[in-house]
């Protein structure tokens, strides 16, 4: 809708043309048809030039009609009532027609603009949907830049700060938009004096708010609110694409993590395999040698066998330590029978000659909550530790205590000094110390780590036997108790 002087001239010219035609043909046309013809320039002017040219055509047409056609002709005087009525009706109809035509025109223009806006949105979605999210986002920004002038995506104020094109007012507007999720800067109500407009690209409540910065038009025209509203729609689309990009990125990072996790597991599994295969050959061959001898077993062979078994246990402890370290340990929570667990732990151990092992685990002991495999490992390590320190006696006992079951392993060895009692469960404690007869020290660290993973507690104190008492306190199973 342009209101150039041209459309006013056009209105007057059209009225003049109709006036000439009607004046010449009045006897043929009659007054009523002539009056109708004066509506044509009104329609033309309103359609081409809008409201004001239309009104001008209405006024000029009415005047010309009055002056040229209504009796007495060539004066603006009106003698007869019907003449007055026809002039007034023509005037009113012309004015209303002009307004209606203008409104129709405006509505059409609005529909056009809306169609254009949706086409633009559709185009941008197509651009953003294609291919890799990061590339699509860059292409989407280029698309917006191509239509609305220089555009930038600001994800944090620090990136905006480094950009020399922003004045301090721009930065303030950007900060507002980033913090509050409002449209700010040029063309808006908030800091409208800024050179750039800032449009949020994600919903207000999001912590990762980002804004689209749009430079003031170089040709100088101010951005209208409706234009910025369209830009807001485009910005939402950009925001969705940005979400897709960050999801893709997260997925990629997770995949890398899973990959390294898998590698590590494969490594540990093959390490176990590489260790145990030679151990199998060593122990197998040693056993065959031991059986070959006719008169009694050779103690040297038994020593070698015991050492090989120790190596196997250390390997299991090392793998357990690796699982504790990287947090991949997932303890199951089943109800377990401690009678079962101690029986299988004892069955797996070689009890040195001259050592009496007493088991006092009541057959009707309530079940405990634990991971059966970890529990087995914990018990084996505790009993193994006791066997290595005991002189003559080792006692394994268990009894209920409130809502827990406490299993104790007592030995008559040297015991653990009070000052050492906390440190003894620390990793490689024994290795750093002077006494290497006690193994790597990994065993008790595994006990503590696995116990804690199962919700159990382990502690060390004095034993009535004179040595150390290790106590494992396990949550009692709420279910059946045997």
């Amino acid at each position, binding site marked *: 809708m342009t209101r150039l002087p041209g459309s006013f001239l056009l209105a007057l010219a059209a009225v003049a043309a109709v006036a000439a035609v009607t004046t010449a043909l009045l006897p043929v046309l009659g007054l009523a048809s002539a009056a109708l013809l004066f509506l044509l320039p009104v329609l033309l002017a309103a359609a081409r030039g809008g409201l004001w040219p239309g009104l001008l055509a209405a006024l000029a047409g009415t005047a010309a009609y009055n002056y040229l056609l209504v009796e007495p002709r060539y004066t603006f005087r009106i003698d007869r009532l019907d003449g007055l009525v026809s002039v007034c009706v023509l005037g009113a109809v012309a004015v209303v027609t002009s307004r209606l035509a203008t409104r129709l025109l405006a509505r059409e223009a609005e529909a056009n603009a809306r169609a254009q806006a949706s086409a633009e949105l559709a185009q941008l979605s197509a651009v953003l949907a294609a291919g890799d999210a990061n590339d699509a986002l860059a292409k989407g920004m280029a698309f917006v830049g191509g239509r609305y002038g220089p555009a930038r995506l600001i994800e944090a104020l620090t990136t905006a700060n480094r950009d020399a094109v922003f004045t301090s007012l721009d930065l303030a507007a950007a900060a507002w938009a980033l913090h509050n999720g409002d449209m700010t800067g040029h063309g808006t109500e908030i800091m409208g004096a800024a050179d750039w407009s800032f449009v949020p690209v994600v919903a207000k409540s999001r912590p990762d708010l980002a804004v689209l910065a749009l430079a003031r038009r170089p040709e100088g025209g101010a951005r209208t609110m409706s234009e910025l509203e369209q830009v807001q729609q485009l910005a939402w689309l950009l925001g969705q694409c940005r979400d897709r990009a960050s999801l893709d990125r997260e997925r990629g990072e997770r995949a890398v993590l899973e990959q390294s996790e898998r590698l590590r597991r494969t490594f540990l*599994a093959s390490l*176990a*395999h590489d260790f*145990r*295969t030679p*151990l*199998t*050959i*060593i*122990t*197998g*061959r040693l*056993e*065959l040698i031991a059986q070959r001898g006719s008169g009694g077993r050779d103690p040297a062979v038994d020593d070698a066998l015991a050492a*090989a*078994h120790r190596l*196997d246990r250390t390997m*299991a402890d090392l*793998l357990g330590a690796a699982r504790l370290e990287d947090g991949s340990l997932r303890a*199951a929570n*089943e*109800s*377990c*029978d401690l*009678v*079962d*667990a101690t*029986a*299988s732990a004892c*069955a797996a151990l070689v009890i040195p000659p001259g050592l009496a092992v007493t*088991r*006092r*685990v*009541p*057959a*009707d002991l309530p*079940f405990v909550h634990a*991971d*059966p*495999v970890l*529990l*087995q490992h914990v018990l084996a390590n505790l009993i193994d530790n006791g066997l290595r320190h005991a002189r003559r006696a080792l006692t394994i006992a268990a009894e209920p205590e409130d809502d827990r079951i406490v299993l104790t392993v007592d030995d008559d060895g040297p015991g653990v000094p009070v000052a050492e009692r906390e440190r003894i469960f620390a990793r490689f404690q024994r290795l750093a110390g002077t006494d290497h007869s006690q193994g790597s020290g990994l065993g008790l660290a595994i006990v503590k780590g696995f116990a804690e993973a199962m919700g159990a507690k382990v502690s060390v104190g004095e034993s009535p036997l004179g040595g150390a008492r290790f106590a494992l306190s396990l949550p009692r*199973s709420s*279910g*059946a108790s*045997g």
Partner: protein
Amino acid sequence: MSRILCVDDEAAILRLLSVILQRDGHAPVPAPDARAAMAALGAGGIDAVLLDLGLPDRDGLELLPALRALAAVPVIVISARADVQEKVAALDLGAADYVTKPFDGDELLARLRVALRGAGTQAGRDGVLTHGPIRLDRSRHEVSVHDRPVALTPREFAVLAELVAAGGRILTHGALLESVWGKAHQQDVEYLRVVVRALRLKLEDDPAQPRLIRNEPGIGYRLD
């Protein structure tokens, strides 16, 4: 004499297995990889398979069903990993039993004897099963230990019957739960623990130091 196919990529392990097997009068048939194992089993005359799960050319867990499909012989899995899931998976895939490296020669031979026996006499006779001191009469629903009659609930009887029928082979928790309680209760290990506890109190000479029913943590139960 039984012909035992030994599948392991390590030559020293194959030699060790040969010596151990020959001690019990078996004839070892070595196979260094999956391809050779399939060929040897396909040729026939094999009574049981000792299968290492860590093979160079094929995953042992994959090979297991293929071997089972080729010939109906018991397969004992030899695993270098302490990983419980792998053992349960192997048993679920039809392995008769497993041993963990480093294994004990006597234990391996004992497992093999049980597996070979199971293969021969799986068809129940007159409904009377025995294992060590346990005598279980399926048709009359009677159990005795050392000729001492023991009264069992139907669940206890069913679990014990499964274990006795397995004759020392390991039964996984899942398998026991499925055959006694039904498929829907495969995960309810707690049911099984309660029943095994009750069985111990009734069967064992000293229930605090059980000897008859052996627990394999995280895997299942077997009769000793």
